[in-house]
């Protein structure tokens, strides 16, 4: 629980507070630490978004992971 963080999609924003959705479940998120817009994904930890997820970086990592599993790394 303590360092657990899960990717959540931001579906609603009002001020420092947002609603996030994960697997159909809605959760209130404090977004004081991130700049996000509706549709962005964040890492949710203990009620706070601790970072906005970076789609480009995620694609990069997947590419690297594929190369690694092909023995190209």
């Amino acid at each position: 629980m303590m360092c657990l963080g899960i990717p959540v999609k931001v579906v609603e924003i009002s001020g420092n507070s947002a609603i996030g959705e994960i697997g159909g479940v809605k959760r209130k998120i404090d977004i004081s630490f991130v700049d996000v817009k509706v549709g962005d994904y964040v890492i949710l930890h203990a009620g706070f978004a601790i970072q906005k997820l970076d789609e480009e970086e995620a694609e990069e990592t997947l590419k690297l992971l594929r190369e690694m599993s092909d023995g190209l790394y």
Partner: protein
Amino acid sequence: MDYINPFRDSEMCSALSKEIKKFGREVRFMEVCGTHTMAIHRYGLKSLLPENIRLLSGPGCPVCVTSSMDIDRMIACTHAGIVATFGDMLRVPGTFSSLEKEKAKGADVRVVYSPMDAVEIARKTAKNVIFLGVGFETTAPSVAQAIKSSPENFMVYPMHKLVPPALKKLLEGKNRIDGFLLPGHVCTVTGTKGYEFLKGKIPCVVSGFEPADILASILMLVKQIEEGKADIEIEYGRSVKREGNQKAMETMYEVYEPSGALWRGLGYIESSGLSIRKEFGSKDASALIKEEFESEEREGCRCGEVLQGLVEPVDCPLFSRVCTPLEPIGPCMVSSEGTCAAYYKYGGYA
């Protein structure tokens, strides 16, 4: 984008495992973070690694590294008001009692999911609400934010700890460690600057938490060793930036300042904890606890050594015979990030 399933792809995992198995040297890597320990056991990743690569669990379970003294003092907070806490803390045994036992005797102990939930409780009561501030750099900024936006009757008992000083201490110890899987969510907040002192000393990879993330990070450690490098690489780039989350760090240091802290297993470490700054002194619940305790570790419990990767839970004679998640002797069996709990739950000990 789907941030979960592509990183759980089983074909990718077995291909990564094959690549890792090409490496023949005996090495010992430590997964610093308890959430990594849990993921490694949940996905049976040890079975995908060759025997020459050993994974050691580290001190990355905030509840587990909390000293008996702090546990006793935080249980005493129940005499000073409503105690709000993350669920993990409830059954942790102190020297004399636990929060759960105090609750059964009538103490007002509430489990919350977020420190902001505890602030909400404070807004609806005239009583003092004391939030137990456990957690690493991942959690401390959120608790700091709660402190900043709370009414007068909200306080925090600070037990936060910082990861880098603990790694420094571990490296000075007698355990041989050839590489660190660094904690992905701690580094999401802090970035990697605080870990620079490890550069040139020991290979490090900041890892994500899905099975392919962890296997890829292990492969990256292996490659660093093959190439004679000792760098700090980031595998978990979708969440971790070198500079971390500046806003979160600023909030953390606005409210807290580094101070010495006592760790279970590792002992006292300079500047490895956080205490509440004078400006926020009225929020510091530790000032309310005047009692002195003769705190002791429970006899026979080897948590302290488990947290340093010196022994495995199965080396503890109490494991699963006397000590279980329902009747825990030590905190490593209670927390959802504890190594003993991971071994017990996923049966890595059969």
